[in-house]
């Protein structure tokens, strides 16, 4: 059988290798699913196929001929289309305008509304959304409907290869059903479909073949009906671990208890305890509600229900906003350094002291002692080995790892009892990563409670004492070091997603 599309030894590296010698094949009229953990390289592979990124080495063949798109437009001209995970719709335009933004039907600049509406209706019919009037604004749609519009935009053009990156993440069961019907039509027309999903049941139902990516390598390619789901999960996670970062520590008294936390729609039910000297990991897939959970605990977002106890107190703490949480000794190292953490154009000094401009830095009742501030920030710069010329260097001019260390310094200087770190090592180089593990370790050794959210399971296995697994907004299970395994954690991470689908 000849392949519609194939890759040969495709490789790509950023800081480290993301894809390694990937040989992937796609037959006409086939649905080929890609599965793997967060960061396994699924999205990167798809983006290379769609011309958004270029491989470092290896080549691609489309119908036997070499194919090397330099842009997404190139790939589209050759009949390869991608529907991306994140939404790229313009909220203030109508559905029809969004669908055909690149080539609005017009005469001398005036939009031909009738033609536009007709084409849009056709495209919407393809995804089973004919009941939506194409003239309404995208801002009025729910997230699932937006996803469908995005899919319609991808499907409304003729193509030979269609890539769907997590198309069902925000869809209800009915819409997913409808999408699958559409996919069957495409199959009949001999279009090859690459399908990424975290919902393994869906994959099992629709994919002719499943390829498993792990750390950038394609480790297995399985045919429909010839595998079990737990086998797929094992293939996704199986690897050796270096556990050298975890040091045995004395676990002390409780510092934080969360009971029945709810913050819909992302957080449905979360309860756990955190103790002094403990690092608790939060694992889960994209959309499992980890960030939303810690933001709700910290008071950054509204809670619908749930009690939070700080320290050994048996009375629930009043945390309405972040200032309450910080006063009670909780710190949050946010997921997005630039928009939620740093004062980018300001000096390192100002960034370090922001959360603790207290009595230590004051003199004459209210005036900031700048010399003191400079020497204290210089101390933290030295302790965390932050690469700056001096403490007056602006945050914007630092590398990602050093920016992260600035924020870590801010919370270390505040001296919180509980420090919550949301993706503390995202987008920073390996060296800085290991340093951050060391600091988190020493924090725990000093008797603080630490929560670490990470999409990198390997990282959590290296540094945590326990790992709490969230799945579709529920805390599915908490594993101790001696009882966890990657398979168990991954099954727990998938556990609630099927159930959530039915409920939605």
């Amino acid at each position, binding site marked *: 059988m000849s392949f519609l599309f194939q890759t040969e030894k495709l490789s790509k590296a950023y800081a480290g290798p993301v894809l390694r010698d990937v040989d992937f094949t796609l037959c006409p009229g086939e649905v080929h699913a890609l599965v793997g953990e967060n960061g396994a390289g699924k999205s990167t592979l798809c983006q290379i196929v769609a011309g958004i990124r270029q491989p470092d080495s290896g080549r691609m063949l489309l119908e036997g001929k070499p194919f090397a798109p330099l842009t997404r437009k190139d790939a589209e001209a050759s009949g390869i289309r991608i529907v991306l995970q994140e939404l790229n719709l313009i909220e203030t335009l109508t559905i029809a305008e969004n669908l055909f933004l690149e080539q609005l039907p017009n005469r001398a600049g005036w939009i031909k509304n009738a033609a536009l509406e007709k084409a849009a209706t056709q495209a919407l019919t393809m995804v089973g959304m004919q009941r939506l009037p194409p003239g309404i604004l995208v801002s009025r749609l729910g997230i699932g409907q937006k996803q469908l519009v995005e899919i319609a935009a991808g499907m409304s053009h003729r193509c030979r290869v269609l890539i769907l990156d997590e198309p069902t993440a925000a869809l209800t069961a009915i819409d997913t059903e409808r999408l699958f019907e559409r996919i069957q039509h495409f199959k009949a027309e001999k279009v090859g479909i690459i399908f990424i999903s975290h919902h393994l049941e869906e994959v099992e139902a629709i994919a002719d073949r499943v390829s498993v990516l792990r750390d950038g390598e394609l480790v297995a390619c399985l045919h429909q009906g010839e595998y079990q789901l737990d086998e797929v999960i094992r293939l996704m996670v199986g690897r050796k671990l270096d556990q050298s970062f975890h040091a045995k520590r004395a676990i002390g008294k409780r510092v934080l208890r969360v009971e029945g936390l709810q913050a819909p729609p992302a957080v449905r039910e979360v309860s756990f305890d955190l103790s002094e000297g403990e690092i608790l990991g939060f694992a889960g897939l994209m959309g499992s509600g980890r960030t939303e959970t810690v933001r709700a605990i910290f008071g950054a977002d509204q809670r619908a229900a749930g009690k939070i106890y700080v320290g050994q107190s048996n009375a629930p703490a009043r945390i309405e*906003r972040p200032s309450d949480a*910080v*006063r009670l000794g909780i710190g949050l190292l946010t997921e997005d350094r630039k928009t*939620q953490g740093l004062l980018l154009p300001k000096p390192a000094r100002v960034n370090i002291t922001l959360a603790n401009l207290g009595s230590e830095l004051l003199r004459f009742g209210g005036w*900031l002692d*700048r010399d003191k501030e400079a020497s204290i920030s210089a101390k933290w710069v030295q302790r965390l080995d932050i690469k700056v010329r001096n403490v007056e260097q602006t945050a914007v*001019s630092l590398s990602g790892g050093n920016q992260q260390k600035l924020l870590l310094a801010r919370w270390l200087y505040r001296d919180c009892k509980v420090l919550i770190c949301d993706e503390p090592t995202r987008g920073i180089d390996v060296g800085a990563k290991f340093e951050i593990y060391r600091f988190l370790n020493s924090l725990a050794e000093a008797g603080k409670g630490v929560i670490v959210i990470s999409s990198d399971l390997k990282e959590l296995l290296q540094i945590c004492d326990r790992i709490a697994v969230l799945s579709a907004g529920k805390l599915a299970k908490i594993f101790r070091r001696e009882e966890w395994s990657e398979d168990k954690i991954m099954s727990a991470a998938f556990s609630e997603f099927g159930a959530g689908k039915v409920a939605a």
Partner: protein
Amino acid sequence: MPDHISDNSSTATASVASDARGSLRQKSQWQEIGENSIGLVIVLILLIGLFSLSTQHFFSAVTFSTILNQVPAAMLVAIGMTFVLIIAGIDLSVGSVLALCGGILGVGLVQWHLPLFLAALLCVAAGAVCGMINGALVVRFQLPSFIVTLGALEAGRGAAYLVTNSQTQYIGSQIEQVNDASFLGLSLPFWVAIIGVILAQLVLTGTVFGRYLIALGTNEEALRLSGIDPRPIKIIVFSVSGAMAGLAAIALCSRLASADPNAGSGFELEAIAAVVIGGTSLMGGRGSVINSFFGVLVIAVLENGLAQLGAQEPVKRLVTGGVIVAAVIVDFYRTRRAEAKSRQLR
């Protein structure tokens, strides 16, 4: 080999620390302010030089004291406006609030026969309350301050007409004594405004509150997630802006010996212009009260000089408008150069 490496890094970090302190001793707070203001001072001197050479009477004590006695109201309003712009807000209501406060001052003195001290206090308090309402609306309903204060611009003017019965209220000698009190040939309002400028600058650069203002204008979410509630800060800033409009009302009424419900119309834009000429960013996070003061002076010198040159109102306005835009363009390039420099050194 490892020894060598660790040795190196420890000397490197030590030098970071010493460099940090060294550079700070080098650059004290006052030095920083001076450095920031030098450009504006040069522009001011150039303007004065230009007008002195091109007119007969510009370079004289009379001209200078006229200018300096004219500016207190604008200076006071500019102080509040600088704070508001630094937190990435805007206050369009200051002109109307000024008129309302002036009306209250006039009514208090003339109809209620309050002692001057009490009437003045009432006037400033009224301004602060107006500002507080602005701030509370911005915070409570998360509205853009542009909208809230645009509403207050209209409502405040209406209230000013109500209070004064739409008539200019003659106050008389009672209030004139405020303006007549002078020191070194300059009026009391001028000295109050100068003290206000210095105090506000100190608060901005030297206190925790000032630091929070700058952080709030740079990245509100970062400040909030650092555990500092931005809401009271915003309310205080708008209250200060209102109170400054109240103080400005006293300055203006004492100069004119009357309270005019039409007073201060267009004042908000004049104040914003002065603050922007002073290099305060409309995007927030950056600004200087001292420079706003120089901004006020630049506009005042320009207007007086052009008048002495015999320029008519249309020309004066054209030139002033040009200077405002030119100042912002110069500032844009200055910041971009500073940013590029900090990248290069990375």
